[in-house]
């Protein structure tokens, strides 16, 4: 990513279910104002929301960095938290360690990471147990 890039950082607080989704809603509004086509915005917003929910559900704190160039929209999502021991397993549809409380909110179907991957043109996930998890998500414009 080079010059002329729109860039904005958002903080996400682990366990804050009241505000969960606020960052994704804000990102969506920004992309709307930039004038990006609705189907692309929808894909980015879904990926952002699943990533945001994962920080709220599993991590202590996290950050989402939104960058927009004429070519791509990019989300860098990072958190401080327990990390993921087996990424291959976590990426499988249906795999979830969500608690009953989280399931009661409608999450924990084990579809979040697969949803992010499906909506991204490029997706990378890295994690270190005991430290945290980072996601790189790109959608081509």
């Amino acid at each position: 990513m080079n010059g002329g890039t729109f860039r904005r950082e958002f903080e996400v607080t682990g366990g804050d279910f009241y505000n969960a989704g606020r960052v994704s809603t804000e990102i969506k509004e920004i992309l709307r104002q930039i004038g990006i086509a609705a189907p692309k915005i929808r894909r980015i917003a879904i990926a952002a929301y699943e990533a945001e929910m994962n920080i709220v559900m599993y991590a202590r704190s996290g950050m989402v960095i939104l960058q927009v160039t004429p070519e791509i929209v990019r989300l860098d999502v990072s958190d401080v938290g327990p990390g993921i021991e087996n990424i291959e397993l976590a990426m499988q549809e249906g795999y979830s360690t969500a608690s009953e409380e989280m399931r009661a909110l409608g999450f924990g179907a084990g579809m979040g990471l697969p949803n992010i991957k499906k909506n991204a043109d490029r997706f990378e996930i890295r994690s270190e147990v005991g430290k945290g998890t980072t996601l790189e998500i790109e959608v081509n414009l």
Partner: protein
Amino acid sequence: MTLNEVKHILQCEVIAGEDRLNTEVRMGCGSDLMSDVLAFTKADALLLTGLANRQVIRTAEVADIRAVVLVRGKRPDAEMVALAREQGIPLMVTNVLLYEACGRLYRAGLPGCSEVPAAEGGTAG
């Protein structure tokens, strides 16, 4: 199908978005699992769910879902109603059960998510 028709067919009480009942929905989705809703809906869907919390409204906003119907008499709390108003997502409640609510709308011509093409182009409304 318009939200007015949905309201009539399911005998809904309108909780938020009274002024938006002429909005068109292209398909229906009945689910309590928000990740499944995000995975399987396309833009301009109607969501029918028994889940009553703020995450439902967030999911609707994120996925371009045009309105939410709470089934089997579930009542939204004040926080959910406030977020629906803030996000401009019409919210209705019905006493009809999920299966029957979906069945009635399907019979009236509202297709399912796998039966309609994804929306094209334009900027989000």
